[in-house]
């Protein structure tokens, strides 16, 4: 099915309201990427989301959008608390999949000659790959404490500092988490995966800040040209997948009971004010907290590896968290809608929060600058640090893109990589990569992704966030 798209300006295309759509669709992209977008079912999925009850203004998609299941990846939609719904398909299986960035005082000339040693040490210290399990084994009581406390649980066990929490979205803890709604299956899957990277597109990347676009913001974020930084990209692991899976089944029945017509079973949803809807949010918050604890623990181990490899003191290394964002989540947030301030439920599936300076949800550390936004690119190109804007608050309920976005399917990527050594190609560009999975290098190779520079140009040009810095990878661990 071809979805009609009407160009509004250089960065915006509208899907006019037709059929059962309650609001129009709005896709942020440019003309060149639009061709890729139209190749798959992403636009249909934007239109499908627009049919859900209580949706406000637009069903939106960011420039890194692609075909997902239920919502498109890169999808953003907000719902009225009385009339609207919450959908696990608008969050995804990997609840609070997200990204954190650390800065150091080290410069690239010191790190580059040691990159093999550093990446090998990281690979040895942080479990990665399929079904990876870690050195932390949780009994049920401790696990429930993780689900309620989030990153604070790790900090209380000396795996981080109060300052880390101040630099994490929602301070690393989502309110309303209720372990009572989490199934035994989810608890079983989560008990030995805390502090593990996982597989697929999850990674730890050592990079160097190559270009600065906004000196003031970069200084506030602790970034300088030539400085070495570390990205950690992971989520809530098997626990989150299971919570999503459990609730999809439950909410599918609620949608039928409530007479909510859904164009795709994966859009199973429940009214926000129903018990099942509230239970999903309480379970989702548990997974979000698990993910924040997970990234906090991996960051702690990363810090230890750096101290060891560079034989430096913490004071000399000044390795601190810049920020941690989640990009798969649904949140009750206060926004202005049609001139009135009200609470709504914003779904971000493969989209990042983008809040401007002065916003009450931006932690005090960055209140005068705006919220840092982390956009990991593919492992051969580069990543971006952006800052939140008023434009996002006005137009996208404070949301922007989350990454480069896939353009090749995984099977197509493996096919395209046949006969090539992706590892050596990356080495040729000065990037040392270690990986656990057999096919993950091929599946995740740079050609499989959209051009992150273009994606970021769109959100910058459309005013959904502003460029602060661009980094170039030096070494990567792939799950």
């Amino acid at each position, binding site marked *: 099915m071809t979805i009609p798209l009407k160009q509004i300006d250089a960065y915006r295309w509208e899907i006019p309201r037709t059929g059962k759509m309650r609001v129009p669709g709005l896709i942020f992209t440019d003309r060149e990427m639009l061709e890729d977008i139209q190749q*798959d079912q992403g636009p249909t999925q934007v239109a499908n989301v627009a049919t859900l009850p209580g949706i406000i203004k637009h069903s939106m998609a960011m420039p890194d959008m*692609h075909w*997902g*299941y239920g919502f498109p990846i890169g999808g953003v939609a907000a719902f009225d608390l009385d009339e609207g719904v919450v959908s696990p398909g608008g969050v995804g299986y990997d609840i609070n999949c997200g990204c954190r960035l650390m800065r150091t005082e080290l410069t690239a000339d010191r790190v580059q000659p040691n990159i093999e040693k550093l990446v090998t040490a990281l690979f040895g210290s942080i479990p990665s790959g399929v079904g990876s399990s870690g050195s932390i084994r949780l009994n049920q009581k401790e696990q429930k404490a993780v689900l309620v406390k989030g990153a604070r649980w790790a900090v209380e066990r000396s795996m981080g500092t109060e300052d880390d929490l101040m630099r994490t979205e929602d301070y690393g803890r989502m309110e309303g988490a209720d372990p009572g709604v989490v199934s035994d299956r989810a608890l079983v899957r989560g008990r030995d995966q805390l502090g593990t990277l996982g597989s697929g597109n999850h990674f730890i990347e050592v990079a160097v800040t190559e270009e600065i676009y906004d000196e003031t913001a970069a200084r506030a974020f602790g970034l300088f040209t030539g400085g070495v930084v570390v990205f950690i990209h992971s989520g809530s692991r*098997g626990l989150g*997948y299971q919570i999503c*899976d459990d609730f999809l089944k439950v909410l*599918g029945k609620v949608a039928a009971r409530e007479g909510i017509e859904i164009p795709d079973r994966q859009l199973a949803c429940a009214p926000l004010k129903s018990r099942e809807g509230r239970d999903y949010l309480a379970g989702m918050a548990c997974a979000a907290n698990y993910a924040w604890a997970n990234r906090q623990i991996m960051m702690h181990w990363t810090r230890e590896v750096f101290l060891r490899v560079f034989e430096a003191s913490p004071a000399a290394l000044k390795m601190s968290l810049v920020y941690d964002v989640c990009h798969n989540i649904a949140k009750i947030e206060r926004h202005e809608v049609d001139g009135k301030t009200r609470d709504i439920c914003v779904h971000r599936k493969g989209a990042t929060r983008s809040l401007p300076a002065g916003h009450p949800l931006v932690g005090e550390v960055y209140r005068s600058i705006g919220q840092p936004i982390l956009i990991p690119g593919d492992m051969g190109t580069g990543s971006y640090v952006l800052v939140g804007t008023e434009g996002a608050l006005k137009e996208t309920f404070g949301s922007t893109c989350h990454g480069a976005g896939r353009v090749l399917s*995984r099977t197509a990527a493996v096919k395209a990589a046949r006969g090539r050594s992706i590892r050596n190609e990356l080495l040729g560009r000065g990037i040392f990569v270690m990986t656990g999975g*057999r096919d993950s290098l091929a599946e995740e190779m740079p050609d499989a992704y959209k051009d992150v520079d273009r994606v970021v140009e769109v959100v910058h040009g459309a005013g959904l966030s502003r460029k602060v810095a661009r980094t170039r990878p030096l070494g990567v661990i792939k799950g």
Partner: protein
Amino acid sequence: MTPYRFLDHTADLRIEVEADTLAGLFVEGAAALFDITAGIESVRIREFREVRASGDDAGELFVDWLRELLYCFTGEGMLFSRFEIMVLSETEILARCGGEPFIGRRHEVKCEIKAVTYHGLEITRCGEKFRASVVFDI
């Protein structure tokens, strides 16, 4: 050779299976799941377990069956390579599944399936054949 094939999907894994009977379709779907996960050839039959699933219609039942089997691996570390369907109705399935626990030195996880999705789920009958397509989130 397992009779399933990959269909295109940008982010995830979309497969299509085919069989002569509805029961056969459930067997082929299960075989595909374990073949993608660990290579079904590597799974020896050392024990049997009963796996049960339910759904409101054949489509939901198909997904639920695969979800149950996936949990046998992700939650309990079991791999299966033989599936004997004992009961199959519009809304229920009970099967005896043969396999063995995952052992790191003998098995290799080829691909981590995070979940079996309902997206684009289709069960159709084409002449003498039953066909299903399903998307695995990976």
